[in-house]
């Protein structure tokens, strides 16, 4: 029996980590992530969760302590955002390369300068090549579900990789929504204890983090890449089991009113729910448009993308991270790269916006659809096209 409770996004991910019975939380506060780790330390200090809360002195140390704890065999959880995420960067690669299933919630926030605290995906997008598995949640239920299933996926012996749950800073992290929470027994039945095959152990001394020469590095990185890519079937299998147990099914890319649609709009994260309303409006007016909500960012869901865009003529991708001096936005660019040579008949447009918490209204998503379609018809666009941004 599950119960439905009002929870802000921060508490939804914290609740999932509590129900997962994590052993260690090592974290450092930053807006808009603070509520998550405050809630975690409350759990620990009230006795609601038997875990060590390590109040480290920086995010670099947070991720380093998570690495140590996870490597020692402890179920490990943390959270951060923006500047803190950037300070962690060096360590992110090592946690992935060491095959450690650390689970981290990221309350996505723009990067300075200028100093700010509001949401976009500048932080998320900087970690695309770190080897972490990554999903974008669109609402608080998804934040709970993705956090809980992240432990199961990350710790699966076929995976053993760290997992990031991206959740919009403020617009999800600080917004209360109704969330279904399962019973503890249901969670325990879904999530077996974590057991790393090579946890630090004096009875079985191993050497971790050797020095490698050009003679072997390339092979190792190739193997790591093949491994990360190869986790998609396991992710799908576990999400399917999650659905069977809890009644909510997830896919790498969700399709909404997409069947037979001439134009598909693609959005990641919480704004996909606003985009849904824009699609509803346009459908009512008889327009052939649907929505793709991008959930799984890493590994990149190639097959799911090809399936999702079957039959479509135009794909309009919306992005929330500036790529200063680079080609277009990160999601737009990767979608184009993935489709090139596979679906040359599909016209792809990309529009950026909603930087640093700038709100995007339903009418602006309608504008995205219209301008996207126009770009597709025209067959060319500016390198950077934005919506809702002056200048």
């Amino acid at each position: 029996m599950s119960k439905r409770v009002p929870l802000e996004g921060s508490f939804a991910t914290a609740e999932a980590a509590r129900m997962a019975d994590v052993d260690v939380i090592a974290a450092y506060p930053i807006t808009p992530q603070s509520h998550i780790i405050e809630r975690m330390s409350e759990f620990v200090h009230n006795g609601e969760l038997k875990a060590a809360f390590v109040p480290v002195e920086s995010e670099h140390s947070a991720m380093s302590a998570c690495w140590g704890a996870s490597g020692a065999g402890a179920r490990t959880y943390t959270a951060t955002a923006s500047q803190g995420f950037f300070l962690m960067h060096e360590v992110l690669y090592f946690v992935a390369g060491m095959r450690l299933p650390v689970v981290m919630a990221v309350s996505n926030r723009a990067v300075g300068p200028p100093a700010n605290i509001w949401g976009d995906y500048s932080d998320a997008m900087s970690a695309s090549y770190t080897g972490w598995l990554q999903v974008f949640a669109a609402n608080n239920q998804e934040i709970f579900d993705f956090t809980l299933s992240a432990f199961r996926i990350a710790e699966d012996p076929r995976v053993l990789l760290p997992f990031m749950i991206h959740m919009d800073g403020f617009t999800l992290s600080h917004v209360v929504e109704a969330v279904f929470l399962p019973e503890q027994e249901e969670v325990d039945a879904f999530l077996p204890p974590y057991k790393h095959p090579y946890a630090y152990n004096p009875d079985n001394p191993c050497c971790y983090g050797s020095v490698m020469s050009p003679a072997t590095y390339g092979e190792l990185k190739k193997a790591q890449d093949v491994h990360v890519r190869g986790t998609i079937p396991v992710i799908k299998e576990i999400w399917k089991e999650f659905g069977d147990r809890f009644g909510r099914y997830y896919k790498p890319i969700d399709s909404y009113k997409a069947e037979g649609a001439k134009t598909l709009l693609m959005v990641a994260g919480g704004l996909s729910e606003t985009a849904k309303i824009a699609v509803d409006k346009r459908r009512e007016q008889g327009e052939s448009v649907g929505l793709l909500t991008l959930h799984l960012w890493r590994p990149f869901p190639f097959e799911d993308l090809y399936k999702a865009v079957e039959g479509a003529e135009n794909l309009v991708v919306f992005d929330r991270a500036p790529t200063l001096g680079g080609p277009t936005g990160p999601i737009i660019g990767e979608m184009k790269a993935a489709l090139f040579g596979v679906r040359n008949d599909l016209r792809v447009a990309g529009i950026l916006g909603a930087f640093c918490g700038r709100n995007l209204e339903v009418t602006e998503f309608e504008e995205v659809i219209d301008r996207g379609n126009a770009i597709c018809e025209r067959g060319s666009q500016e390198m950077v096209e934005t919506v809702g941004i002056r200048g």
Partner: protein
Amino acid sequence: MAPDTIKVGKHQIDAKEYLAPGHTFCTGCGEALAIRLACKAIGNDAIIAMATGCSEVCTSPLPVTSWQLPWLHTLFENAGAEISGIEAGLKAMMRKGKAPERDIKFVAMGGDGGTSDIGLQSLSGALERGHDFLYLCWDNEAYMNTGIQRSSATPYGASTTTAPAGKLSMGQSTQKKNLVEIFAAHGIPYVATASPSYPFDFINKVKKGVAIKGPAYIHVYAVCPTGWRTTSDRTIEIGKLATETGVFPLYEIEGGKYRINYEPKNLKPVEEYLKAQGRFRHLSPSEIAKIQEKVNEDFALLKERAERLPAG
């Protein structure tokens, strides 16, 4: 059967080698010797986290390793945080019945660069939080692994590749950062200096450091023949000179109380120590006099502290 311990005079030393031969340290490396002895004092039931530096690179070139203990290379600046996570993780699992109760020795190691500069914050955090671990700093007074660049532990007057002696400079123009006092100021239960030139004193301190509950810090003098421009057969001798001249005194701070472990009747002139190393070759008599003055001052200050706050 091989003996478990080797007897040297009245001392017993673990016969087991935890740092296997075949590593790539330079001949006569003081750091290698220090690690070998430290591990004999630590023994089994340990987990070691090591910061980037010579000792990491020289002991773990894939596909071989010198480590007979569970060992991990952290990064350059995070050994303190890493050992915090390992200790917190294993202890949490023991409390929850997920791991068997046992006394594991948590040990972090780093060079002077990884300790006094880039890793200072991470170590300070770990000490302040009170994790139960021993930190061993191998002080060879520069970034040796990357080619003898200066660190904040490089002594005044030493020539390094980023603070070289030249027409306009006499090498390092700043005084060596006093890490021992910095860590003692964290109020941790045990802080000490040690040197492999005094192996039994060193081994005893490491044993003490791992046995004490809570954080312990040992600052280990590690002669680097390559970076100090000496010959590889003089490592022990130079280590002794450092202590006999008062450049590197051996002392402990236990619960805030001082104990000087070795006090020569008369300190040898510092010049003897400086002249033995190419990194000080360029120093003029007046610079040497200045260094002598500072050594006298520091040693007097240490003695004054030890008299004021004596360990029992």
